[in-house]
């Protein structure tokens, strides 16, 4: 049985059917005029071979191609792209089944940050009264390591609401190089979680190694096809409208192997996309359609996700403003576009502008988490633990986010109003009204224990004290103390034998560990 996620009843729609059509038509126009600049020779040849108008041009010293994608190719790609995509998992019960026309939401971690935020709780003494002490959280940023990646995968494994794991940090240990980064980040993550694992690839040359690793874990080539425990995210189109060489080549290779891939585009309204909603929507949709078309031309029927990470520019720095309200609007529009094409959607919420956990982080995250979830994306990169845009990961924040998602999941349960339910409560009302106290409390008890009543906020302190961080920290350590279901010893041995570049310290069965 796959994970249930949460099926959103009556998903929120921000744009009308007519507006969806208008965006679709505008995107088709963009794909022809101005078309896209392509820095990947392979992609240019694939498009040319399939009837797109491709002209050779250059950008500085680099050769590139100008591609105009005709509507016919887009339409065929949309027809052949799978409408249901399965993302497997080491534990098959953690598999995710995503149908493009079903608003079933899965909550996912991510993205890849350079900074890991440690937290501790030093004690402060009140100047005017030494007997008064308080503990205040302090956050310390540092470069992330492979041990951090293991730790975050471990905690994410035990976060109840988290359905899938996108690698959280960029591993920057001294012995990590461009050549061994991929195999180590895949192994570290897969060994510490039995949930689905998605990642980008640093070096195309490592693709076969990580695929082989996944085959060994899944039980062979065919088993991996049946249960794709890994998937990839590729930002092949850089906004505005440019196929980037390395990521496009990676994308082509992944598609050839038939593994699930996100076609992701991340335009910034105001700089790399028009500031107006109509503009960024027409452009991002065109960029994603271009990627989907390429993927289907490479391997008809290869599973793809419509990936959307649109964001508005900050007016003060021109950096990404994930906390901006418009960012959520764009994401919801993309969810609707993906549903129009019936292709499962990878959407974004929960990314915030603030640098440390706190009130601003909670407000920004919860706002976008609620509104984007309500629109019913299938694969919601809701960024457990992510802070400062995509720059910082904090495990404590991930634990805090889990509490938000518990509320959200509870809220989205279908209303239990039906005739038998009404018959029962009508009887109850009659009985209670006839009693002297006129209280329904007696009827709460079994309902309370059936899971029908939402739980209180788990990090509520006593009295007037705000103990949210301290209690979440305690919870984080409880999760870290939980057991890890590592990859079996014989499989681990095979992986270390066959896959080059793995750090010996990641082998948990190694003598002395």
């Amino acid at each position, binding site marked *: 049985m796959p994970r249930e996620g949460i099926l959103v009843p009556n998903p929120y729609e921000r744009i009308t059917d007519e507006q969806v059509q208008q965006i679709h038509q505008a995107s088709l126009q963009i794909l022809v005029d101005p078309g896209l600049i392509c820095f990947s020779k392979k992609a240019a040849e694939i498009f040319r071979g399939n009837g797109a108008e491709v002209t050779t041009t250059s950008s500085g010293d680099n050769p590139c191609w100008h591609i105009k994608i005709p509507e016919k190719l887009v339409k065929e790609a949309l027809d052949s792209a799978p409408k249901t995509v399965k993302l497997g998992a080491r534990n098959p019960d953690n598999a995710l089944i995503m149908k493009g026309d079903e608003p079933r939401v899965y909550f996912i971690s991510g993205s890849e940050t350079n900074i890991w935020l440690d937290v501790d709780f030093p004690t402060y003494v009140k100047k005017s009264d030494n007997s008064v002490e308080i503990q205040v959280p302090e956050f310390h940023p540092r470069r992330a390591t492979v041990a951090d990646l293991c730790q975050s995968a471990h905690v994410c494994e035990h976060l109840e609401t988290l359905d899938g794991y996108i690698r959280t940090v960029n591993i920057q240990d001294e012995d990590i190089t461009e050549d061994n980064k991929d195999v180590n980040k895949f192994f570290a993550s897969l060994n510490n979680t039995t949930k689905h694992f998605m990642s980008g690839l640093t070096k195309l040359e490592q693709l076969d190694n990580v695929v082989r690793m996944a085959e060994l874990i899944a039980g062979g080539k065919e088993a991996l096809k049946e249960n794709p425990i890994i998937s990839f995210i590729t930002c092949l189109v850089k906004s505005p409208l440019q196929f980037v060489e390395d990521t496009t080549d990676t994308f082509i290779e992944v598609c050839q192997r038939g593994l699930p891939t996100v076609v992701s585009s991340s335009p910034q309204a105001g700089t790399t996309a028009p500031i107006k909603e109509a503009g960024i929507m027409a452009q991002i949709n065109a960029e994603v359609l271009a990627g989907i078309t390429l993927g289907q031309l490479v391997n008809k029927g290869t599973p793809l996700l419509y990936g959307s990470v649109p964001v508005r520019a900050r007016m003060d720095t021109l950096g990404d403003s994930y906390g901006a309200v418009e960012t959520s609007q764009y994401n919801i529009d993309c969810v609707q576009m993906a549903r129009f094409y019936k292709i499962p959607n990878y959407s974004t919420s929960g990314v915030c502008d603030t640098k440390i956990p706190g009130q601003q982080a909670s407000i920004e995250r919860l706002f976008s988490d609620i509104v984007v979830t309500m629109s019913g994306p299938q694969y919601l990169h809701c960024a457990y633990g992510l802070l400062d845009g995509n720059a910082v990961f904090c495990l404590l924040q991930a634990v805090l986010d889990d509490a938000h998602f518990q509320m959200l999941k509870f809220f989205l349960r279908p209303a239990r109003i039906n005739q038998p339910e009404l018959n029962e409560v009508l009887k109850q009302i009659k009985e209670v009204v006839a009693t002297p*106290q*006129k*209280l329904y*409390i*007696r009827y709460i*008890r*079994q309902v*309370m*224990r059936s899971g029908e009543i939402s739980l209180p906020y788990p990090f509520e302190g006593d009295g007037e004290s705000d103990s949210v961080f301290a209690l979440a920290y305690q919870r984080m350590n409880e999760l870290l103390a939980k057991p890890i279901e590592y990859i079996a010893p014989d499989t681990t041995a095979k992986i270390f034998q066959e896959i080059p570049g793995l750090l010996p310290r990641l082998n948990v069965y190694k003598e002395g560990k």
Partner: protein
Amino acid sequence: MTEDDIVARLKENVIQGRKTQQDEGIDEKLSGTPGVVELTRLALEKNIKPEEIINKALTVGMRVVGEKYSTKEYFIPDMLASAEAVGEAMDILKPLLEAANVETKGKFAIATLKGDTHDIGKNIVAILLKGAGYEVNDLGTDVPTEKIIEFIRKESPDYLGLSALLTTTMTEMGVVIEALKDGGLRDRVKVLIGGAAVSDEYAQEIGADAYCVDGFHAIKVLDSFQRAKSN
């Protein structure tokens, strides 16, 4: 069923908060079996003494409920259900206790004051205190001062609980206390106040004996008065 079985089941039903056979309780296995009311009657039929019913089943059961509440296994609805069940048992036992000259813990009258019809808090306090072994007289809501004074004069309760949710009706508490003084009744009854509108400071200001945050606090306050009395 032996006497020990009856007492054990009575205690278990107090813990489960099952007032009668129809009650659902927590453990589904008990569904349809006799509750506290039926078992109390059965106990009396089997000539188990009322004191034994109280000490070995009701009090012990409520102690377990209290422990479960303090460890957060139980919540207020569980406490109330158990307290209500014990209250029902006490109603059955009351005539027998009176006939045997066994005193209850104390007599407690409670009322929501004139102009205020909110009674959730008052009712909860009444249920909990009854479950804790106090004899409770609930005078109702929107009760005029004269009616309260008349009750105190006639029934001589040990304690009077006054409840007000509204800031517009809380001043009536002071009026009741003044009326008790005027009627020469103030020394006969301890006055406790509670409700969202009032506070400890307000209790002192109007000359009440105590302010109770909630029903559980009210039990503690009353128990401390009882202890002071017996010392």
